[in-house]
């Protein structure tokens, strides 16, 4: 063992990384599938619990490695031509890039496809008409977080439509309070919080078919319908007094503390916060979901069941071997996440997932929201070409918050579309 004594003054901590790996202790001739993903620590163990039944049934050995810098690491592995058998992508934009480079195994028309339960699932993993990926774990995005006790005390009602929600916004303002919590600083990914808002509004105002065309690039950002969506968002963020801290805070406060004024101030600094289900991880430890804090689905047009915007982790294969396909087929089955759901912190995108498998009420509720939704759509910015979806769409949202000029922002975003060959590094906003 080499020991090196270095004076503390000469050392500078340049970063920390967390990785997790697991492997069974059987160095025999069982087929091995190497899986690379973003889950570490507790999540890695839970993922291992999810694929344990597959290993038992098939005798295939899953060797999982999880990293805290997935996006960077997977792109470096591509540079080194050192591909895992399967990768779990928290950013599907990367799947599109790899698919365009012909690095992924097409999965269309085989057992993987038939195991999937819904069009939304298939669409999430489809690039250019070919299915490449299996949607394994879901995040529900169209949620508004609120404090039930505050609503009870002040006589507020859960809004049934977008108009009701704007009425509630005015009602809260009249009571001398600030209706909305919102902030979106997220390092290089600042702006993604705003893209979720625009996607939710487009989906609500113009329906899923129009949304799909827009995501595929057939409808431009400069289309009047998209400009409308920006201006609908503007009715919340650009009306003074509707967002806690105003546009300055929206741009500069980390998104993870957007909701803090709801808990830290008395009366609450803001009463409504639209954010995905992973907001659960940002809540103060003393806050109990379902009791102190709850969610309602971001409402849509009056009389229409609100569509659900979702995202999550997708699995794609780099190597075509029978055991690799068998693993992806397994991930596409409704049983795939049961081992994880039993530990908590998992929502299945599969319509036939057994709700009894969920161990927490919140997980079960999210699962039911997805299963009961008439329309589910995958996060559009994740599916758009990377120079837009993880590029100008983000920066354009910053411009729009700053200036309030929807047309200028739309033009800026649309300018990202030319045939880009350069692939930018994609940070993971959720982590």
């Amino acid at each position, binding site marked *: 063992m080499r020991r090196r004594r270095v004076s503390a003054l*000469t050392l500078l901590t340049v970063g920390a990384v967390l990785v997790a790996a697991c492997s069974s202790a059987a160095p025999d001739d069982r087929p091995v599938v190497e899986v690379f993903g973003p889950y570490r620590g507790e999540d890695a163990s839970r993922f291992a619990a999810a694929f344990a039944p597959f290993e038992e049934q098939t005798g295939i050995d899953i060797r999982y490695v999880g990293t805290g810098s997935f996006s960077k690491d997977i792109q470096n592995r591509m540079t080194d031509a050192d591909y895992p058998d399967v990768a779990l992508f928290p950013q599907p934009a990367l799947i599109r890039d790899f698919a365009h480079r012909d690095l992924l195994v097409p999965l269309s028309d085989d057992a993987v496809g038939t195991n999937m339960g819904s069009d939304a699932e298939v669409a999430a993993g489809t690039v250019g008409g070919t299915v490449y990926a299996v949607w394994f774990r879901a995040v529900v995005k169209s949620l508004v977080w609120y404090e039930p006790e505050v609503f009870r005390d002040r006589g507020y009602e859960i809004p049934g439509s977008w108009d009701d929600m704007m009425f509630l916004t005015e009602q809260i303002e009249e009571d001398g309070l600030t209706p909305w919590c919102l902030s979106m600083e997220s390092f290089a990914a600042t702006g993604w919080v705003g893209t979720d808002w625009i996607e939710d509004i487009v989906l609500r105002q113009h329906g899923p078919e129009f949304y799909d065309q827009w995501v595929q690039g057939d409808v431009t950002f400069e289309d009047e319908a998209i400009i409308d969506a920006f201006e609908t968002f503007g009715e919340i963020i650009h009306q003074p007094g509707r967002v806690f801290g105003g546009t300055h805070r929206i741009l500069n406060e980390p998104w993870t503390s957007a909701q803090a004024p709801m808990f830290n101030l008395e009366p609450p600094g803001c009463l409504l916060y639209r954010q995905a289900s992973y907001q659960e991880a940002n809540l103060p430890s003393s806050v109990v979901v379902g009791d102190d804090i709850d969610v309602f689905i971001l409402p849509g047009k009056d009389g229409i069941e609100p569509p659900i915007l979702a995202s999550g982790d997708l699995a794609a294969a780099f190597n075509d071997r029978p055991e690799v396909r068998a693993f992806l087929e397994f991930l596409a089955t409704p049983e795939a996440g049961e081992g994880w759901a039993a530990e908590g912190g998992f929502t299945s995108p599969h319509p036939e997932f057994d709700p009894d498998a969920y161990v927490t009420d919140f997980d079960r509720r999210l699962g039911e929201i997805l299963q009961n939704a008439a329309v589910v759509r995958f996060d559009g910015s994740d599916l758009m070409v990377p120079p837009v979806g993880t590029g100008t769409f983000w920066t354009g949202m910053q411009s729009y918050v700053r200036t309030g000029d929807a047309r200028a922002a739309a033009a800026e975003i649309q300018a990202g579309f030319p045939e880009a060959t350069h692939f930018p590094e994609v940070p993971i906003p959720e982590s």
Partner: protein
Amino acid sequence: MEPTDDQPDRGTHPLADMTPIESIWGRIRQREIWTDEERETVLDELFPDDEKIIPYLKRFATLMILSTTIAAFGLIADSAAVVIGAMLVAPLMTPMLALAASLMYAQRKRFLGSLTLIILGTLGAIATGWLVAKVAGGTLTAASLSPELVARTAPSLLDLGIAVAAGLAGGYVLTHKGAGSSLPGVAIAVALVPPLATVGVALEFGATERALGALLLYTTNLIAIVLSASIVMFVSGFVPDYVRQIARGHLGLRLLPWGLALLAITVPLGLHTKAVLEDEAFVRNVTDAVEKWDPQASIVEIDADRSGSRATVSMTVATTTSDLQPAWKLAQSITDEHGIELDLDIRYQRESTDASSTS
């Protein structure tokens, strides 16, 4: 060996007609000459009689509570010096030596009395430790106990060795006039109160497993002290021959449960020792893996804990380059070699190029 008044003369000189080995053994065994009065003085200290018992119990309770309080504060504050101070105040050694003496003298009433006192003292100390942690636990949590606390929660066979030797020393000090000044050393070598305080503190923080570990350390010390002190008393002549002869028939029977308890306790201690050795071996393997992973990286600090098929490693590596191999490759090489689940946490430190370093 000279016969004293109360020792029946065996009629032969003990060292006569012996082989050299027997002669040496005889000299080692050569006992001090105890008069009945001297014995009574020592036994009076160990077993206070009617009028002295109340003050004795008061003193015992007071010192027990105070020493545990000092120990618990010292443990929470992570101060070794304070914990040692607590050991010197602790009064538990007396009833333990008394228990050993009552075993040798085959005195059932005194045996039960001493045992009761030890049990009450033990429970009182755990309660005191719990209370101190409740009041002054501060920012500690089950996951972040101070090193002084953690050190007392994983006893190994080494601790058994220490306890046996200290028990022998304790018996020796008691039975050899003039060795009394060594008693504080014995108390420090085989701490009784700090493990008990640790049990209480760990319970308050909900660290049940750690509390059980500390309780195991205490039990190890208790059994080893009683057993080895008994043996010294028997061998040294503190126990008079007439008692030895009357009680000899039952001696084995009386010591048997303690011997069995000692044997039983070596099982968890052996497992603990194995775990410690495995952790050390694992750290060596991880260190080797880091060298193979990237020769540019040198380990500044490493903390590895392996239990069964799960391991947690957190390390700080220093490097002069910004271009190390990705961490996942290290994680993969370790898991591939050991067939385990691993959580690896690496902190990187940049070493400036002019850093003086020794290899």
